[in-house]
């Protein structure tokens, strides 16, 4: 078991290291100019050189992503609960949730920017990232709340459960795997939303990682671009793993998807 886990970590790390070595060697041997493809060592140097500015950019992107994600989870779950309580509300609002989802965020971004004003770029970024992250939570939770075993619903009816008891003791736990699945999708989307929104917003007070990439690109500081890109990927991976861990911890005891079968 521990051996197997060790291997599942070791192998990708080895592959990564090997790829970096090949990359480094290819760039050096081929004399590739660093504004086309910088070697990993050069990227590393750029990362160290711009460390504090990159870190503050990372912090801004992280903050927007996490805040948008948290609001998406709260909003999505709350709205799904509302839908589950009232078919009428669902009929009335669900189409608009879909419209919000299918309209490309890049296309809404300028409008949102105008509405919140250019001195509130961070708020605009937050709204845009939220829009992208919100729908998977809403649709997954809605599905989860509806997928409760009918016999269990009847059981609760039989024992005179109130709406609140039914929701809290039956529907929400039953929907938990769906909610966590939605969170895994929307965590990544929140990051994408934050970055795309920042690209669209352009300059302004927002100086997250996306803006660093644009800025470095304009100055042809390709190693810095790569360094920012590297941090973005790292952030995405961290979010994904954190949510996977959360899912595992929450479901490992009872849900089919997380149960460990080989004892």
């Amino acid at each position, binding site marked *: 078991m521990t051996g197997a886990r060790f291997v599942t970590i070791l192998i990708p790390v080895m592959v990564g290291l090997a790829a970096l070595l090949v990359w480094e060697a290819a760039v050096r041997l081929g004399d590739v100019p660093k504004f086309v493809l910088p070697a990993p060592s050069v990227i590393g140097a750029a990362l160290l050189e711009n460390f504090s500015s990159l870190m503050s950019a990372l912090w801004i992107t992280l903050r927007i992503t996490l805040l948008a994600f948290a609001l998406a989870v709260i909003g999505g779950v709350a709205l799904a609960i509302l839908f589950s309580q009232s078919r009428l509300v669902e009929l009335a609002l669900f189409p608009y949730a879909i419209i919000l989802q299918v309209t490309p965020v890049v296309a809404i971004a300028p409008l949102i920017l105008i509405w919140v004003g250019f001195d509130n770029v961070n708020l605009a970024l937050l709204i845009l990232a939220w829009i992208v992250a919100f729908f998977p939570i809403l649709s997954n939770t809605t599905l989860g709340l509806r997928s409760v075993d009918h016999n269990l619903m009847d059981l609760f009816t*039989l*024992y005179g*459960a109130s709406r609140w008891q039914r929701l809290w*003791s039956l529907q929400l736990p039953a929907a938990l795997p769906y909610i966590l699945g939605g969170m895994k999708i929307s965590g990544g989307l929140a990051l994408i939303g934050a970055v795309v929104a920042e690209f669209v917003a352009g300059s302004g007070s927002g100086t997250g990682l996306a803006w660093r990439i644009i800025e470095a690109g304009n100055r042809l500081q390709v190693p810095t671009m790569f360094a920012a890109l590297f941090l973005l990927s790292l952030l995405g991976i961290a979010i994904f793993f954190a949510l996977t861990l959360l899912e595992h911890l929450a479901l490992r005891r009872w849900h089919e998807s997380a149960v460990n079968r080989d004892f």
Partner: protein
Amino acid sequence: MTDLSPELSSGLDTPLLTLSGVAKNYGGARPAVTDVNLTVARGSFVSLVGPSGCGKSTLLRLIAGLLTPSDGGVHWDGGVRPDDLGFVFQDATLLPWASAFENVYLPLKLKGVAADDARDRVMAALGRVGLGDVPHRLPRELSGGMRMRVSIARALVTEPPVLLMDEPFAALDEFTREKLDDDLLSLWEELGWTVIFVTHSVYESVYLSERILVMGSHTGSGRIDEDLLVDAPYPRGLPFRQSPAYFDHCKAVSAALRDGEV
């Protein structure tokens, strides 16, 4: 042969449950249940047998109030309220994220009983079905038969005066099933509940019940066609299972079931 014997009905002022002209149509070409007239005496053990799809589950759900009849009425008497019912579904129907203890505690929890106050009752109910030593296990850590017993313990924990069971042991092996049959009977004798028990096993219905309602034979689906009495005394153990009377009753029920299939 189609009415309650004098011994059983005497001393009962009113039947506990009365169904008059009950019908249920799901919207298909023919109704799932038609024209069921039935009275059930307090404290009796009644089985409902019939071929698959004849409307047994539908009738039980109508009785439990989980379905509303398209026609006719279901009437409980003697102060029976909906939450005096215990219901055991065909499969265990447990909360997969909750332990055996929490599953059995559920009905009490929904009635607002605090966990500490309920502990003794829950453990007693688990003990009755022989699961007193595994209260912390999750459903997936229990065998199929154990899950079914948790489900029965959950129905028992509120000590419902009326227990409705929909083929509770159908998925179990013969051996476990006979054991659970015996457990159920001794509980019934001890506590004096009214039990309505759906099964498709002729043998099980004869072994358990005082009265057997045969559904969906003569007239096609949805009706009660025969109302048979099994006048063997309780407790019924192995001797009854091996007695000629037992086989006679089985033959009678089988014949009633076959009657319609010309």
